[in-house]
C-alpha cells in the first residue's frame, strides 16, 4: 500500500536537494573549470577547498552549536508561557500584542542589527556569545509565539476546565497539560530557532566579528576578499557546516515522529 511512496519520496527529495548537490559539486571543482560547460560530476575533483576548511574552520563549529542551542532555549523560555497565555488565558490586549509581534518581525534585519550594535557598544557586550544569542533570538521569538499560540489553541478547553476543577493552577495546567499536548509545535519552534541561529550571518557579522568565539557563517568571509571570492572554499565551508546540523535534524525528526505516534495512541 505505502510501497510506492518510498521511491517517489526519494525522487522528490532528490529534486529538492539538487541545488545542494550542485553546491557540493562546485566545492570540488577547481577554479579553472568553474565556468566551463557544466558537468554533472566534477571531472577533475580537487579537495583543496576542504583541506583549507578543515584546517581553518573546525573550531567555529562548536560556537555555532552553542549559539544555536542557546537561541533555542531562550526562544522557548520566552515564547511558550506567552503563547499559553495568549491561547488559553486570553488576557485583555492580546490582539494588540499579537499585532506587535507581527510588526516586530517586519523590522528589516539590518536595522535590528544596527540597533543592537548601538546598544551593545554602549553596554560593552559586543563580541560575546550570549549577546549574539540574544540577538539571534529576535528572529525566532515572534515566530515561536505565533506558531505555539496556534498549536496551543487547539488543546480543548474542557480538558483545562477539568484540571482547574481538580485544583490545578495556571502554571500546572501549562506544564503538565498544554505543553505536552502541543509538543509538535514546541519541536517546530525549536527546529526553526535552531536553523535560523545556525545560518544567521547578519547579526554575527555586526555583533561578533571581533569575538574570540565566532560562528561558522563568519568563517565563510575569509574566502570573500575585496575583489576575489574563493568559491570552492566557500561552498566547502557550507557543506562542512551543514553536515552536523543535518545529522541533528534527522535524529530530531525521528524523535518527533516517535513522539507523534505515542501522542496519537494516548488520544
Amino acid at each position, binding site marked *: 500500500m505505502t510501497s510506492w511512496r518510498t521511491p517517489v519520496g526519494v525522487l522528490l527529495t532528490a529534486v529538492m536537494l539538487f541545488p545542494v548537490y550542485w553546491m557540493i559539486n562546485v566545492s570540488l571543482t577547481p*577554479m*579553472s*573549470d*568553474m*565556468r*566551463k560547460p557544466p558537468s554533472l560530476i566534477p571531472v577533475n575533483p580537487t579537495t583543496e577547498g576542504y583541506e583549507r576548511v578543515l584546517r*581553518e574552520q573546525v573550531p567555529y563549529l562548536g560556537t555555532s552549536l552553542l549559539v544555536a542551542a542557546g537561541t533555542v532555549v531562550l526562544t522557548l523560555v520566552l515564547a511558550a508561557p506567552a503563547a499559553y497565555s495568549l491561547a488559553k488565558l486570553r*488576557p*485583555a490586549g492580546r490582539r494588540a500584542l499579537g499585532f506587535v509581534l507581527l510588526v516586530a518581525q517586519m523590522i528589516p534585519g539590518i536595522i535590528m542589527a*544596527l540597533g543592537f*550594535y*548601538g*546598544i551593545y*557598544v*554602549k*553596554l*560593552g557586550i559586543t563580541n560575546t556569545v550570549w549577546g549574539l544569542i540574544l540577538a539571534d533570538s529576535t528572529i525566532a521569538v515572534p515566530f515561536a509565539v505565533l506558531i505555539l499560540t496556534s498549536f496551543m489553541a487547539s488543546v480543548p478547553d474542557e480538558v483545562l476546565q477539568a484540571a482547574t476543577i481538580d485544583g490545578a493552577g495556571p502554571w500546572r495546567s501549562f506544564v503538565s497539560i498544554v505543553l505536552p499536548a502541543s509538543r509538535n509545535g514546541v519541536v517546530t519552534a525549536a527546529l526553526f530557532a535552531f536553523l535560523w541561529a545556525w545560518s544567521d550571518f547578519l547579526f554575527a*557579522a*555586526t555583533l561578533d*566579528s*571581533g569575538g574570540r568565539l565566532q560562528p561558522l557563517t563568519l568563517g565563510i*568571509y*575569509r*574566502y*570573500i*576578499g*575585496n*575583489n*576575489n*571570492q574563493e*568559491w570552492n572554499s566557500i561552498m566547502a565551508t557550507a557543506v562542512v557546516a551543514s553536515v552536523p546540523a543535518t545529522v541533528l535534524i534527522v535524529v530530531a525528526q525521528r524523535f518527533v515522529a516517535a513522539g507523534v505516534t505515542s501522542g496519537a495512541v494516548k488520544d
Partner: protein
Amino acid sequence: MFPAPVPTRLLAAVGLVVSVAACSSAPTAGTPDTFSVWDPYPQFTAESEWVRTIEKCGAEAGVKIQRQAYDTTDLTSKVLLAAQQRTAPHVLVVDNPVVSTLVEAGVLKPNSEAGLDAGQVSPNLVAAGTVDGQTYGVPIGANTLALYYNKAVLAGAGVDPASVKDWESLNAALAKVKAAGKKGITFSAIGTEEGSFQFLPWFWGAGASLTDLPSGRAALELWKSWLDNGYAPNSVVGNTQTTSWQEFATGEYAFAENGTWQLGNAKKAGFEYGVIPIPGRTGGTAPAPTGGEFVTVPVQDNKDTEAKAGRIASCLTAPDKVLAADTALTYISAVPSVQQQQVSAQPELAVWVEAVKNAKGRTGDNLGTRYPRISQPLWGAVQAALTGAKAPEAALRDAQASVK
C-alpha cells in the same frame, strides 16, 4: 486587571536601559594601552605577515594592538556607526573611494594634524584622499585594471597582442578571435560600484568626464557592440569581477578586463597569459581607476591618542613595511622607489606599474562625495544599454538627468 501599570513599567525599563547606556558611554580620558586597527582583509589570519606588521608597528609605538578584519562592504557602515557611538577604531584601513565620504562625515583626521605624510606617494594615487586641499591618510598600495590575454587563443586566431593599440585594433582582434571559434572578451558590468569601476577605463579612454555622462557615449556603444556582435557573453551584465575571471580561466576567452589582484590566480590558470594596458579610443593607455586602501587615523577624544595612532599609521605605510603588505595583497606600491624594487624582483609587474602611473582616483578631480551620486546612475545606464532597455545615448542622458 493590569490597566496602566504595565506600560509605565515598560517605559521605566526602557528608560533604565537607555540611561545605563548613556552613563557608560562617557568618553574615557587619557590614552588607552590597547589600540584598535580595522582593515578589510578578512583573508589574513593572525599568523599572516600583515598582522605581524601591525603588531610590530604597535610595539614600536609602545601599545598593544587589537586588530579586526571586516568585509569591505560592511566596513563603511561599521565605521560610521562606531564613530556615532564614539568608538571609532584608532587606525582604519579603508577602500579609497570611501575616504571622501568619511571625511564628509567628520570621521577622519587630516594628515597635517595626525602626523602622517603622503609626500612620497605618487600624486595621482593621493588624489582620492584629498578633499579641499587637505589629505586624509596614506595609500597602502594600489591596484588597477588592465587586459589579460590568453596567448594560445590569440595565436590561434592570428592576432599579435602588440597590435592592440586602440579601440579599432581591439575590435579587429575580437573579430578574428570570433572567426576562429573562440570567445572574445569578458568583463564585469554588474549593477554595483564594481560595474562602474570596470566601465571607467573605457569611459575615460573616450575622453569623457564624470561631470558630463553623455560625453562617454562612444564607450557605452563599444560595450554594447561587443554584446551585439557576440564578442562578449551576455553574462557580463551580472558578472562580478570574480565571475568574469572564472570565465577567462576556462581558457576559452581571448581577453579579460581584470585587476592586479588576479596575478596569483593567473599563474595557476594552466595556460600562458599576458597583460596589456587598456587602450584609449584613439590610442595610448586609457586611465583606469585606482583601487586599493588608505591607512587613515579617525578622530578621537584625545590628542595624544590621535598622535600615537598617527605613528602606527605612518609605520604601516613606511616603505620598508609596506612592501610585505603589497606583496601579500598583490598590490603595486604607491611609492615610486618601492615600485622599482617590485619590478626588479618581478619583471612582469612592469606593465602594472605603468598602468598604476596612468590610473586616476574615482573621487579625484575634487568630485569627492559627488562621485557616488554619479557612479550609481552610471552603472544603471550601462545596464540599461547592455540589456537593450535603452539606447546608449539615451541611457547616459537619463543618467545625467538623475544626478543631483
